[in-house]
């Protein structure tokens, strides 16, 4: 049974190879082949899951070493897989949601000429993401980490004929490089400290390393997580990444890849638990990002960018929870899974809306769509209720637990973090209600597209509807399922560890507070967008609104500090190199050349001078030999 673990990765990898190398022959069946292989992988994942459920807790983690990748003396890297409850959770999320989105894409990409390649990239992504979560050492994890980065780059820029898409892909790639450097430094630090990359020995010996080393590794891992999970300060790429096809946004930039940072932190819990400074940095990053993303989400008129801000904010919750240590890991992952469902559902809903609206993304040009797209309205609505944490739905359980854990951190920090998460919850309720109202309620504000066609909103085909329905089910019930008898906590805690927080507020108080701020957010949104007509042209807005529309000036900041700062530094270094280093190098070269030119004149072609030089040489030789004896 355990031998099936490599098959999980191999199946979508085979799909990617077939689809990308197969050529035109596969054009007609390629999309179904890709979808079939994704479902096959999901099937294998399910089989492994039930096999794992059948074992006692202690026997659940399984290791499979495929072969030794780099066998150098003292440097041993294996291609080995580790399937425990944490990776199992991810396997099911990735293959499950991934398969649904493959299915959805069959409809969404039906008319795209490069459909076969699209499915090839999707399969490649699945393989890389599975490798990332199944690796039993950091080096192999790094391979998967780069693999998902590559797939993300290829898919964001899938419509590379649009300059905006090509630029967005490049931006995502570059920003991610910064994070990747963090991961590579962390891996190198681990190797120099522990002499290995494998999870088990690294975590076992973590307590023997110095505090400074652990903090360094932790901060570098956090940097990596920031890059991949679009956390402040490496958040700027996620909004632009919405240039990719909507299924990509749903799968990679909402449900799975962007949560890899949370996986990395949770997986490295043994290191973070011993490095309080790194943990503090993690919660700060999480708290800042959850507010940052939420504020950006409030101001966006582009439905996908509003959802992207929301993704950033929700992952902020997870990172914050993961930074809280053992009281938060389980809830970070639980929120990650529920978020995977409802955010994927929301994106697929958004895609369905766009599908019916001539690919229009501006919510100011929607309005009143609930009558025309009832299925999309219902599934999107359920996802909406789940994300704002409506009592009884998935998001309610998972987010509530994070808020409670934040308060449970204790002390002033606990109060600050708790307040941040509550404020975040209110803002979430506000911006998601705004999206809901602007899209499905109010008057029609439709306008003809560039070619003069009036939009004829219609429900999407069944192949797109079915995944939305399934995801909606997950959005509604998953959180409750996880919370019955704390089943998710029992499932995951053997891997991540778990302890109760010491919240100054009781669970009931937290729930009441959450519900109050939720209603507050919904109410304000209703006042602003439900009762009043939505203007087709966005009003000027306050200073904050204008800043939020520009993603809170993230690109301006990057431009001023990084781009122009970097170019000035480069210019300075070029100057220094030109005057200093080059001068030295060229000076030596000139010296050698000059010497050569002068010395070669001794070679004048006269045999008599040659003989003289030999004679002189012989004299010197004899004299020095004698001299050596004398001294």
């Amino acid at each position: 049974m355990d031998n099936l673990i490599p098959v999980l990765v191999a199946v979508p990898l085979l799909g990617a190879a077939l689809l990308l190398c197969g050529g035109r022959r596969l054009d007609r069946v390629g999309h179904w082949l890709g979808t079939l292989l994704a479902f096959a992988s999901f099937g294998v994942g399910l089989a492994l899951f039930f096999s794992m459920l059948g074992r006692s807790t202690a026997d659940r983690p399984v290791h499979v070493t495929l072969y030794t990748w780099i066998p150098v003396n003292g440097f041993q890297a294996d291609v080995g897989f580790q399937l425990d409850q944490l990776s199992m959770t991810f396997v099911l999320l990735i293959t499950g949601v991934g398969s649904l989105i493959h299915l959805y894409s069959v409809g969404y990409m039906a008319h795209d000429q490069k459909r076969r390649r699209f499915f090839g990239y999707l399969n490649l992504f699945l393989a890389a993401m599975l490798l990332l979560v199944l690796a039993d050492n950091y080096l192999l994890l790094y391979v998967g980490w780069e693999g998902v980065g590559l797939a993300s780059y290829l898919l964001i820029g899938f419509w590379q004929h649009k300059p905006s898409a090509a630029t967005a892909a490049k931006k995502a790639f570059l920003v991610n490089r910064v994070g990747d450097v963090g991961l590579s430094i962390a891996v190198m630090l681990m190797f120099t400290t522990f002499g290995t990359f494998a999870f088990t020995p690294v975590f076992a010996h973590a307590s023997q390393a110095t505090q400074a080393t652990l903090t360094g590794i932790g901060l570098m891992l956090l940097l990596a997580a920031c890059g991949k999970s679009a956390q402040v300060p490496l958040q700027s790429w996620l909004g632009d990444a919405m240039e990719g096809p909507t299924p990509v946004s749903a799968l990679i930039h909402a449900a799975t890849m962007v949560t890899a940072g949370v996986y990395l932190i949770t997986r490295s819990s043994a290191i973070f638990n011993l490095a309080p400074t790194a943990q503090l940095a993690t919660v700060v990053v999480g708290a800042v990002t959850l507010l940052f993303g939420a504020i950006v989400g409030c101001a966006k008129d582009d439905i996908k960018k509003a959802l992207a801000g929301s993704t950033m904010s929700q992952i902020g919750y997870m990172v914050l929870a993961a930074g809280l240590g053992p009281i938060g890991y389980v809830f970070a992952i639980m929120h990650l899974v529920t978020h995977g469902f409802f955010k994927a559902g929301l994106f697929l809903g958004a895609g369905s809306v766009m599908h019916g609206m001539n690919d229009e993304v501006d919510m100011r040009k929607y309005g009143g769509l609930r009558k025309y797209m009832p299925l999309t309205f219902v599934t999107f609505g359920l996802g909406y209720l789940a994300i704002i944490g409506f009592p009884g739905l998935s998001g309610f359980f998972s987010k509530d637990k994070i808020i409670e854990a934040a308060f449970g951190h204790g002390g002033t920090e606990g109060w600050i973090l708790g307040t941040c998460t509550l404020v975040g919850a209110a803002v979430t309720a506000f911006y998601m209600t705004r999206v809901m109202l602007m899209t499905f309620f109010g008057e029609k504000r439709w306008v003809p597209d560039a070619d003069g066609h009036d939009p004829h909103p219609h429900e999407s085909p069944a192949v797109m509807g079915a995944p939305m329905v399934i995801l909606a089910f997950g959005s509604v019930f998953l959180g409750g399922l996880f919370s019955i008898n704390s089943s998710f906590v029992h499932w995951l805690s053997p891997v991540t560890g778990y302890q109760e927080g010491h919240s100054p507020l009781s669970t009931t108080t937290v729930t009441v507070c959450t519900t109050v701020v939720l209603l507050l957010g919904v109410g304000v949104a209703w006042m602003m967008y439900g009762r009043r007509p939505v203007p087709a042209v966005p009003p000027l807005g306050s200073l904050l609104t204008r800043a939020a529309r520009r993603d809170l000036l993230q690109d301006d900041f990057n431009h001023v500090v990084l781009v122009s700062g970097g170019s000035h530094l480069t210019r300075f270094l070029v100057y220094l190199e030109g005057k200093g280093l080059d001068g030295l190098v060229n000076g030596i070269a000139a010296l050698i050349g000059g010497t050569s030119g002068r010395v070669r004149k001794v070679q004048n072609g006269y045999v008599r001078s040659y003989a003289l030089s030999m004679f002189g040489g012989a004299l010197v030789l004899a004299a020095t030999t004698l001299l050596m004896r004398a001294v």
Partner: protein
Amino acid sequence: MTGMTLAAAIPPIPAPHIEYLQLSPMLAVFGAALVGVLAEAFVPRRHRYTAQIGIALAGLAASFGLILYLAVDGYATNKADLAAMGAVAVDGPSLFLQGVITLVAVVAVLQFAERRLEPRSSTGASVDAFAPEAAAVPGSDAERRAATSGHATTEVYPLTMFAVGGMLLFPAASDLLTMFVALEVFSLPLYLICALARRRRLLSQEAAVKYFLLGAFSSAFFLFGLALVYGYAGSVQLSRIADVVEGRATITPALAQTTGNDVLLLIGLAMLGVGLLFKVGAVPFHMWTPDVYQGAPTPVTGFMASATKVAAFGAMLRLLYVAFPGLSWDWRPVLWGVAILTMVAGAIIAVTQTDVKRLLAYSSVAHAGFILTGVIALDRSGLGAVMFYLAAYSFVTLGAFAVVTLVRDADGEATHLSRWAGLGRRSPLLAAVFALFLLAFAGIPLTSGFTGKFAVFQAASGSGGTALVIVGVLSSAVAAFFYIRVIVLMFFSDPRADGPTVAVPSPLTGAAIGLGAVVTVVLGVAPEYFLHLANQASLFVR
């Protein structure tokens, strides 16, 4: 009656005992040389070329076979001994270096026999790189007649065989007189064939005269040193000299006046050193190399540059390791100086060279310096490293000069570097092979040059020569500049419109280049077996 008293008065001369089997590799080559001379006299002109090549290759093949037989039979290790009354040592280093020299000679003979590069004579006979009639004055009617009638100087083959025989004897000679004889035996034919270039005959003859004059000068030093050392030790036998130097031997009463006079010894050692350093082309005795390498016919240059170096370093190793290890405190510092000077000067002067053959000449000077660092180590690892280096270097050199013969224009070989611009665009294969040889010269990993350099530097640093190694590495860096400059010139410059053409060689030159490339790669990628072989062979018999 009187006859009987005389016979009684003069003690009978004991017949020397000659071990023919152990000497057979040299005898085979000398035999081939003598048969070649006879063939020159008796075989009709039109068959001489084929006959001479056959004789030469047969002699070399027999010699190589005998060397292999001796080595396998244990003469390189446990049966190693002095032969011919102590005049010739048949031991590991002798057999290893003799093997290298015969292989190099085979490749050289193949190149000498190349007849497709020069345009055919007016009678339609294909001709080689040698003058049609060596005795004819350049530019005279006699020469023109010889050229038009398609004559060829087939004497080069017996001459080469004599040179090879001398080279085989040189590293094996275990007394100073044999060593001197061997030196002259291989030098004189070389002087002659240097003068035999078909093109640029005046330059070739000038080179030969220079080589001869300076060679004679250096031989005189060697002979003078020999006499002084004899005066000190009362013997020319290397092991006997070592005994006297180290105070183990009883002193011959007749020579008691001079024996043990250290001034004689030291000056004698220096003079012997001059003779050998001249042959390997070490600074300041290197000045003949660029002129001679440039003037000699290119196949001969390749042969000289590789085989002479092997033989001369072999003799130097035997002299220093067998006769004078007791004087290492005296000669090592001096050789340090020579090695440093040789590496630095060779590398630096090469930087501004504009002629491929002169460039390779200075490169060979620098390489002599690198090899000297291994000689100075004065231990078994140094000996093995130097022998490996010599084997690796000679095949790279042969291959590189063989490539030079192929790049031609109307005036023969186009050796000016500017003419090589863009060669990589027009003849990528040839340029790539030449680039391989240059990288090997530069000592880039995965080529034999790297392995050899690594081995000698390791040996040098292992015996306290770290400073020497540092100078060596710095010189290598300078040297890498001019090697890689040629590669850049070949591959990254635009080809000239009037640039040279690359002649399509016969399989003979092709085999020489191919063998050079294969050995270069094999000794770079999988050198273990050959390093092991060289190390196993690295023990002198005394």
